[in-house]
């Protein structure tokens, strides 16, 4: 997973997740406040530059991660001005163009803020932040287990695919999609069984370490969190001020 790899490699990996979250939230709020396309474009650019220059996220990574949502955005915005007219025939509707431009740029700005966060913060850091924010403990346990088991199950899946390929399991669509489907179904069923087996094994392993009913871990310490939060707050305030400029 590209996002996850980039987050661990980022230069801001050691920055307190609360600071990065504050900056991202400010970016989202600013995008929601701003109205002029130019301001929105600047609001999209700033978090992107912060990620690329500040956290040294490679441009290629940024673009590769953004490609899928940008595709959706392009499709959705390009088709907004096209629609069925009064007679049911599809036609161009110029009145929707500004709506599409505004929605598109706003989405871009919010996306940039989110990417700035996720490309610099490994998910477990966010989980420890959520723990401090008193998220319900059931939800935290679900997230912690889900994150860890994600990699375990994906490994099981990849190994299964490889083992099936070694036994001619995927002849390709044209040569035998029935066989390909059969392979996929067998593997999905197998990994589904693993869900039960692994859950039981984890339960036993947790019990052996005096499990008390909730999964408690010692969160990572971010000693300079206070200073970093203040800086993030300042930078975020600038973004919001920029956006507020549109309203006055």
């Amino acid at each position, binding site marked *: 997973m590209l996002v996850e790899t980039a987050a661990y490699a980022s230069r801001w990996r050691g920055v307190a997740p609360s600071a990065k979250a504050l900056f991202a939230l400010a970016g989202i709020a600013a995008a929601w406040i701003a109205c002029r396309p130019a301001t929105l474009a600047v609001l999209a650019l700033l978090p992107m530059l912060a990620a690329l220059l500040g956290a040294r996220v490679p441009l290629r990574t940024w673009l590769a991660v953004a490609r899928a949502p940008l595709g*959706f955005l392009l499709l959705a915005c390009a088709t907004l001005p096209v629609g069925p007219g*009064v007679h049911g025939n599809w036609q161009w509707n110029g009145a929707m163009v500004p709506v599409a431009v505004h929605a598109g740029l706003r989405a871009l700005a919010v996306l940039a803020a989110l990417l700035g966060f996720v490309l610099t913060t490994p998910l477990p850091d966010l989980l420890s932040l959520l723990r401090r924010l008193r998220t319900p403990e059931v939800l935290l346990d679900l997230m912690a287990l889900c994150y860890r088991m994600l990699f375990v199950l994906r490994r099981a899946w990849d190994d299964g695919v490889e083992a099936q390929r070694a036994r001619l399991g995927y002849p390709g669509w044209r040569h035998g999609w029935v066989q390909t489907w059969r392979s996929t179904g067998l593997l999905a069923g197998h990994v589904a069984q693993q869900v039960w087996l692994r859950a039981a094994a984890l339960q036993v392993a947790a019990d052996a370490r005096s499990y008390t*009913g909730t999964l408690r871990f010692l969160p990572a310490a971010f000693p300079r969190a206070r200073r970093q939060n203040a800086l993030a707050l300042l930078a975020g305030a600038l973004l919001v001020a920029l956006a507020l400029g549109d309203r006055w």
Partner: protein
Amino acid sequence: MHIMEGFLPPAHALGWSAVSACFLAAGLRAMARDLRQHPERRMLFGVAAAFAFLLSALKLPSVTGSCSHPTGVGLGALLFGPAAMVPVGFVVLLFQALLLAHGGVTTLGANIFSMAVVGPFVAYGVFRAAAALGMSRSAAVFAAACLGDLATYATTSLQLAWAFPDPVGGMAASLARFAGIFALTQVPIAISEGLLTVLVVNAIARF
């Protein structure tokens, strides 16, 4: 089907978040009740969430020859009940937004409503109805997963149409537009999701 990050206007984003928060709170209460009776299910839900995420990140064969990403919510609803799927779906959708940039944080509420509330409840309802009508297990599972998927897609189209009504034709015209565009991809996905769910349920049943 995910609405991308930032695409919904603020009022809609916040509104859907509030709606989904209510469902999430109810789902968490139901899950906490369940966990008090079956504490061992805590691990199970966590691993199941990872499995659902894995399925959603996989490219799976679809009948048209293209690839598709199933949602896995139909499967989860059949195995764990629709109420438990709200928290599990929340985790999966949040992880998709954070790890794959698929969906988003501001659109999380809207996406939860379509994929972790409407989808599972429709799938579960269809399954119960099909079972009551005496359909075979495979047919009932297929119908449940397939229709659950289509219901999700219809909900998303509605959410988009409401947020971006057509100035001439209003919401109805907008709905026709969004539903029309996404039908191209969503109908094959619904069918392959149905097929896959049947295969997985059969595998589990023999286990």
